[in-house]
């Protein structure tokens, strides 16, 4: 940001007066500054509690917290009122600030008195100057850098509307420059009719003006010219015939945008809206109606709308309103500065997942080992139990399938469900296909072991793959037990009757989600939950 560096050297500050011959002027300087932006008041408004701020500053503040920034008293945006007296004081002070600073900061005595003779600004400090006039000025303290650089900075027409325009003011008599400072629009006044136009047009215009022709403004946004028509200024010397003439001659012309609104209607304050009453679409439409961007998520739409209201309403308070184009540019600048990545919020700027993982690698390894150990232990116990069950169920299976064939409709088979492994699919299984699948009843053992072969995907999941073990995750043995198990055909408990053929392959946790079955055994449930409780979550990330 090059501008920042420029600012650094040229920022006017109350401390500028500290080295002058009237250091007390710092108090006056500070009194004319907004406490929020620490700059001279821009379109000052007064709160109900009597504190004055820039319109834009306090509107932004109230958007965040509905309290006066100075005294924390409750305040509402709608109760802010323009503070014209402060505006005048700021304008007046800023018009003379550079001159005054030079005058009191140690130029030769003669120069000081010479300048003070006719300049109006000297009036407010006349007494002080007389008092200190005898003191020889310390020439080493003369501040020449600031005012001069200031001019150059202001030239490039940035958004700083109300900085002193030392280059514009001096050629004019001080009296005028105080009453009505030329608006900051980059235009110059015609010396004859005082109308403002672009510099390049002045010479052409002067001929016309002398010839008595009315000034025809070039094509430009109506908002730019209309609020600044000289006729609205108190000291207007505009020819009285001109407005009607211009209008009658050029209104139908296509060179003018048809929407030439009257100056008064141009900058009406915009009302606030309750965002909760607006859907995304409605809000988008609203933004489009206002003529601002309407893309992005709802939060952004809201923020953008709020910022636009702040800019717009602050502009309404300004005695020298800017054009909508300038406001849009400002909104665009706001947009660039404020949009940040959505996930930025929960992490500190220096946070790194990798570092966290590295730092706590030992803890993670320890937890994983513990979890493995406890599962191995449990599996050993189960394997013993299953061996007994296997023998019994092998005998029964044949009879069971016979029964399935004869009963109408056939009750769902637990083995089949395990094979499909997704509980959601269970209901959709047609009974007929179920029977067909089960047909090779002569080999009950093979049949029932099929699930383990068919669906290896869900027990190949390793601990490393599981980012956070949770209570919905259960081991493969438990999977079968979760299903509604006690069909009339199967008198046996639900546990998978076949121990894993390859224990290495099956020592991992299944990904089958837990669906609370109607007859899940409470004891069993407790058992699995205890096991899972032993596995504290050990993934990397934001604890909390």
């Amino acid at each position, binding site marked *: 940001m090059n501008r920042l560096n420029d600012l*650094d050297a040229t*920022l006017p500050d109350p*401390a500028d007066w500290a080295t002058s011959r009237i250091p007390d002027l710092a108090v006056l300087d500070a009194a004319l500054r907004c406490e929020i*932006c620490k700059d001279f008041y821009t379109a000052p408004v007064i709160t109900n509690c009597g504190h004055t701020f820039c319109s834009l500053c306090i509107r932004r503040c109230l958007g965040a*917290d509905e309290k006066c920034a*100075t005294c924390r008293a409750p305040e509402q945006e709608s109760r802010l009122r323009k503070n014209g007296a402060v505006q005048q004081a700021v304008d007046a002070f800023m018009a003379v600030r550079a001159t005054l600073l030079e005058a009191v900061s140690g130029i030769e005595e003669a120069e000081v008195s010479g300048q003070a003779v006719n300049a109006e600004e000297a009036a407010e400090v006349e007494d002080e100057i007389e008092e200190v006039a005898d003191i020889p000025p310390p020439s080493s303290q003369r501040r020449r850098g600031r005012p001069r650089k200031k001019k150059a900075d202001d030239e490039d027409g940035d958004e700083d509307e109300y900085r002193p325009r030392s280059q514009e003011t001096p050629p004019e008599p001080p009296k005028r420059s105080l009453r009505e400072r030329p608006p900051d629009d980059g235009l110059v006044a015609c010396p004859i009719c005082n109308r403002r136009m672009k510099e390049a047009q002045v010479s052409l215009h002067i001929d016309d003006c002398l010839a008595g022709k009315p000034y025809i403004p070039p094509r430009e946004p109506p908002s730019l010219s209309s609020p600044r028509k000289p006729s609205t200024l108190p000291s207007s010397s505009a020819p009285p015939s001109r407005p009607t003439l211009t209008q009658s001659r050029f209104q139908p012309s296509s060179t003018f945008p048809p929407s030439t609104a009257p100056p008064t209607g141009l900058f009406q304050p915009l009302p606030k809206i309750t965002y909760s009453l607006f859907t995304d679409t409605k809000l988008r439409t609203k933004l489009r109606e206002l003529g601002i961007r309407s893309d992005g998520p709802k939060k952004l739409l809201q923020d953008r709308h709020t910022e636009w209201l702040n800019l717009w309403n602050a502009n309404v308070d300004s005695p020298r309103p800017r054009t909508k184009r300038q406001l849009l540019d400002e909104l665009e*600048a706001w947009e660039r*500065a404020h949009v940040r990545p959505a996930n930025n919020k929960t992490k*500190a700027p220096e946070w790194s997942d990798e570092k966290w993982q590295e730092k706590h690698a030992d803890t993670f390894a320890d937890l994983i080992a513990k979890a493995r150990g406890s599962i191995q232990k449990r599996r050993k116990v189960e394997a013993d139990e299953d061996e007994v069950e296997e023998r019994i169920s092998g005998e029964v299976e044949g009879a069971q399938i016979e029964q399935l064939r004869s009963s109408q409709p056939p009750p769902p088979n637990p083995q089949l469900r395990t094979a499909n492994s997704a509980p959601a699919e269970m209901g959709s299984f047609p009974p007929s296909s179920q029977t067909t699948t089960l047909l090779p009843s002569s080999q009950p053992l093979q049949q029932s072991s099929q699930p383990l072969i068919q669906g290896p995907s869900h027990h190949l999941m390793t601990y490393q793959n599981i980012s956070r073990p949770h209570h919905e995750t259960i081991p493969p043995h438990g999977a079968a037990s979760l299903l509604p198990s006690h069909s009339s055909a199967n008198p046996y408990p639900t546990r998978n009757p076949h121990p894993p053929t390859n224990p290495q392959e099956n020592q991992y946790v299944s990904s089958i989600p837990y669906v609370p079955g109607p007859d899940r055994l409470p004891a069993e449930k407790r058992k699995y939950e205890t096991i899972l409780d032993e596995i504290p979550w050990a993934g990397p990330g934001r604890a909390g």
Partner: protein
Amino acid sequence: MSTFAAKRLQKEMAKIHQGLAPGIFFVNSPNLQHWQMDIQVLDSNPLYAGKTFRLNFRFSNNYPIEAPEVTFIRAPDREIPMHPHIYSNGIICLDLLSSGNGWSPVQSVESVCMSIQSMLTGNTKNERPEGDEAFVLREGRSVRDIRFVYDDPTV
């Protein structure tokens, strides 16, 4: 960084270079959004006498509407001061530093430093906040996202 925030920080920086309140020193700022300040407690409080503490300021785009993130940091010869509202990782539980609670855009870096200075001056307890160990473990959070409850009106 928005122009609004940048301008305001520039002004504060200019002011700082012209002088600061006693016991407050500017250390450095790698960029405009990130400043470090040193503070000293000026009276003879035995807890902090003769020590200097370093504060880290981080400004958001919305400064000064939004409060800056202010924490104590460790550095050579700079510790985290003992205080019942300062955690051992340097996070300060002070309503003044929280947007929507005590923060006001009228505050500045200097005024925040002075407030913290006075917070230390008034303290007599050589202790950390309750639950400090657990709190410190939850590192990596942005200070902005921590919801403090401000229940001690004596600070």
